């Protein structure tokens, strides 16, 4: 470009006199402060009602500007941590990656971009929804579907097609390596699951191990808190998934299936190495465990890692309790049970089967022979339902029926009596176990199935897991939910059906279980055989009268001190369903805790 040299050049400048100046007066800036754009990444705002305290923001932060700090006085809610993020604006780079990954959607950025203070400490603060200046300015940057940084959808678990009901084959196929890695990559490692799990399993840790592909490390994490990894990988009530941070905006991580993936995909030598790593010589004493259910097995295993000799007394012919005789084969195959019990046997635990404490051997004798005794006898009896007709011979109970079915599949018993048309009373997981087992037995015997179900609760509040309901209905269970049993209709000595009536409410005004019905809305469910699955109860035949009088009971469960230790009987510990629960993982947790309690007790009296 050539230079312009003209005598008029200086005059040209005059035209700018009438132009709007490029610069802006400070007065205008103060009088009309500019508002930032709608996406502006200003100082943070955090909605404390929504915030889980999961700390994902803190872990993703590329500048380490976010610290999770405990907040005193914050109401403790399950699935929420009492921590909230604090931001150091000396470090923050205002990238908003924390906003994009926030699982609870509580975090966003504001339009505020000015903060002036002589006090440097004010640049470090814990924002709530009112932001840095506590004046609730408008939202700036928000996460949307495009800027999402979480993987919200669960990698679907494949089930066998509905023909599965023709056999007792395991219905859940399990993850492939590829899917397990992808599923484990969804975890944000917040550890809320660990807090909620009764056994406080190291869930984020073992999921990370899966993600790294290190199965031995994953196994070690499992056995730190749970020696029934096969069982819990299949039939755990998975409270962890209920509180998973990912579940707030998407689907919870398939924690249970990942656990199953670990046990199914670890070679036997690595498995044994990890599971038996901390088992030591039995030099510290001798402990009896009564009952070989989840709590007893867990207690026995951890006592072995603490150096005790352990004998487990079991009433039945095979050890395992509910995992041997309760959970149905199509959910919990025999190999899985054998694997878990096998490891506990390898750990040096001795099983004394066909021996019922209180009948074949007394608790007093155990007390004399052992340093301490753990009671884990579980809920071994069915709760009766005394409606008209309940004493009929074609009325069966869940617990013996499920037990006999498992023995039948082991060729140790004959097939349980099953009619062509049956009805199950109950709406929990056990009721579905009974219903779905019935379908399989009917398919075997009659090549067709007919199972109805009646439960007090309506569909939305059934106590069973949602998968049980969905899969059960897919297999053909005809549910009558919200209808309570009124009478077993008997004609000419034969059951004709179950008369049910509409439930108005399940609990009375004081919150006690006391269902009320609408007798005008009733009908008869056609069936010739009735199964009752309305709950289980404990049996305390081994406790003599003196002990019963000295032990506090609450709703059929024993009241214990820390680690399951019984008041007045320091040598006696209890856990599992007879103390807490009922469920398997609580039993495992109790067993572990009692093992530690027994160890502490025995050490204390040796001094």
């Amino acid at each position: 470009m050539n230079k312009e040299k003209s005598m008029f050049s200086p005059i040209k400048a005059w035209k700018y006199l009438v132009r709007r100046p490029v610069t802006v007066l400070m007065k205008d800036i103060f009088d009309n402060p500019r508002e930032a754009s709608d996406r502006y990444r200003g100082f943070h705002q955090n909605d404390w009602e929504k915030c889980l305290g999961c700390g994902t923001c803190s872990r993703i932060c590329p500048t380490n500007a976010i610290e999770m700090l405990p907040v005193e006085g914050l109401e403790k809610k399950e699935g929420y941590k009492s921590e909230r993020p604090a931001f150091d604006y000396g470090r923050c780079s205002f990238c908003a990656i924390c906003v994009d990954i926030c699982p609870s959607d509580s975090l966003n950025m504001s339009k505020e971009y000015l903060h002036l203070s002589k006090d440097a400490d004010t640049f470090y603060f814990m924002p709530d929804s009112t932001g840095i200046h506590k004046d609730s300015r408008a939202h700036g940057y928000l996460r949307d579907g495009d800027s999402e940084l979480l993987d919200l959808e669960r990698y679907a678990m494949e089930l066998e097609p509905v023909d599965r009901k023709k056999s007792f084959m395991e219905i859940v196929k399990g993850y492939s390596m590829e899917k397990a890695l992808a599923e484990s990559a969804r975890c944000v490692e917040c550890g809320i699951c660990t807090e909620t799990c009764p056994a406080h399993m190291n869930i984020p840790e073992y999921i990370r191990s899966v993600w790294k592909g290190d199965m031995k490390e994953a196994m070690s994490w499992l056995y730190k808190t749970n020696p029934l990894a096969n069982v819990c990988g299949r039939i755990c009530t998975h409270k962890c998934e209920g509180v998973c941070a990912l579940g707030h905006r998407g689907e919870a991580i398939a924690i249970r299936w990942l656990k199953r993936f670990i046990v199914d995909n670890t070679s036997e030598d690595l498995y044994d190495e990890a599971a038996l790593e901390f088992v030591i010589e039995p030099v510290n004493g001798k402990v009896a465990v009564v009952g070989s259910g989840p709590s007893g097995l867990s207690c026995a295993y951890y006592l072995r890692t603490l150096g005790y000799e352990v004998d487990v007394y079991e009433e039945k012919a095979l050890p395992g309790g509910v995992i041997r005789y309760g959970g149905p084969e199509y959910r919990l195959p025999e190999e899985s049970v054998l694997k878990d019990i096998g490891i506990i046997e390898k750990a040096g635990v001795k099983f004394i089967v066909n021996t019922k404490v209180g009948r074949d051997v007394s608790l007093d004798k155990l007390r004399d022979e052992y340093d301490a005794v753990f009671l884990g006898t579980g809920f071994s009896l069915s709760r009766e339902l005394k409606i008209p007709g309940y004493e009929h011979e074609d009325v069966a109970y869940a617990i013996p029926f499920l037990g006999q079915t498992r023995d039948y599949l082991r060729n140790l018993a004959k097939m349980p009596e099953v009619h062509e048309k049956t009805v199950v009373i109950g709406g929990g997981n056990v009721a579905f176990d009974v219903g779905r087992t019935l379908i399989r037995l009917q398919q075997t015997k009659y090549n067709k199935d007919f199972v109805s179900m009646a439960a007090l609760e309506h569909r939305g509040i059934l106590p069973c897991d949602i998968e049980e309901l969905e899969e059960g209905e897919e297999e053909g269970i005809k549910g009558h939910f919200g209808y309570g049993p009124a009478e077993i209709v008997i004609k000419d000595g034969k059951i004709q059906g179950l008369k049910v009536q509409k439930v108005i409410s399940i609990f009375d005004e004081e919150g006690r279980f006391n269902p009320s019905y609408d007798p005008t809305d009733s009908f008869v469910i056609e069936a010739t055989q009735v199964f009752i699955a309305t709950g289980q109860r404990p049996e305390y035949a081994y406790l003599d009268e003196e002990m019963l009088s000295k032990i506090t009971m609450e709703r059929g469960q024993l009241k214990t001190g820390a680690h399951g230790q019984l008041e007045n009987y320091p040598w006696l510990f209890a856990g599992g369903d007879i103390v807490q629960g009922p469920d398997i993982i609580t039993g495992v947790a109790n067993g572990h805790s009692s093992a530690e309690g027994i160890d502490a007790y025995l050490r204390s009296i040796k001094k």
Partner: protein
Amino acid sequence: MKEVKLFLGPQHPGMHGNYSVHMYVDGDIINKSRPTPGFLHRGFEKLMERRHWMGNLALIPRICVPEPDINEMVYAMGVEALAGIEVPEKAHWIRMLVLEMARIAVHVMGLGFIGGPTGMYTATYWAIAQRDLILDLFEELTGARIYHMYIVPGGVRKDIPEGFLQRVIDVIDELETKIPEYEELILKHPVIHARIKDNIMLPAEVVWELGVTGIGMRSSTGKANDLRKVKPYARYDQVEFEVPTADYSDALTRMNVKVRELYQSIGIVRQVIAKMPVEGAVNVPVAAGNALRWTVPAGMVYSAIESSRGEYGYLIVSDGREMPYRIAVRGASYPQGLLGIEKYLKGYRIDDASLWMDTMGVCSPEIDR
């Protein structure tokens, strides 16, 4: 006369960024010059090895402050190549829009900043004000004025806000009417001519010797070497534009080429807006899982684009984990900004030194990286 050592920068109105040149002068003639980089050295490359693939997004724009988007683009292109991801069509066009807007902003600023070393601050203020209008657009699109953190591996972070494209058109229309004024004020001005015409030379043989790319290369060798043309990325093969060249090596020629590029970029922005798909996704995830666990398959890739100063590239090495194994940055100003100063600044006058920095296209953090 006794030789005197003078420091140019890091605090100096004619200095670009925190950079320093030690000059040994005799009278006002530079006898020897030593570039002193490092004031902006945060160890970007090393820091990247300790951050998640997504987290690096907050770091890399800082490698070139006036034109941060090129970092995001080469990083994203490299990661996408390693991960084998196909970027959605719309994202390609949005990326081009961002890159060209950034080029316009940086060229306008480069044009006006010549006012610093020549004492004509009007040009600087005009340029800053003009650039701010583009920064307003960036703020609206990305949420920030300077560090956009918008082009991400897999696409772009968010879709275009409603009415945004019209506002882009308004701003570039207005800019187009202003460019002749800049030309009049700067490129036709006798004072500027006196300072940069036939001065601050970058001869073709120096270009080949040092490996200078960009405007420096194109204006002295006549070679239309622009990666947007010779190795098109995004959708540059679907827009029409020319690569301005010249065959004289003084600073004035370089400034003229810069203005002609500005017009080309304005043309590209208009075409992008016309051709951009209305619907469609703007990104795809890099890998399964959440951003804390994104992994990129093991491998090595060099990705490069045409920045306002020349070829800008990242060599990215992944070992398959959630963080890069190694990233090396090829800053476009490295040859002239480091080697050039050392070897070819001597012989010029003291007051030419900052013009040298200005017209060669030097961005100091990309030398320090």
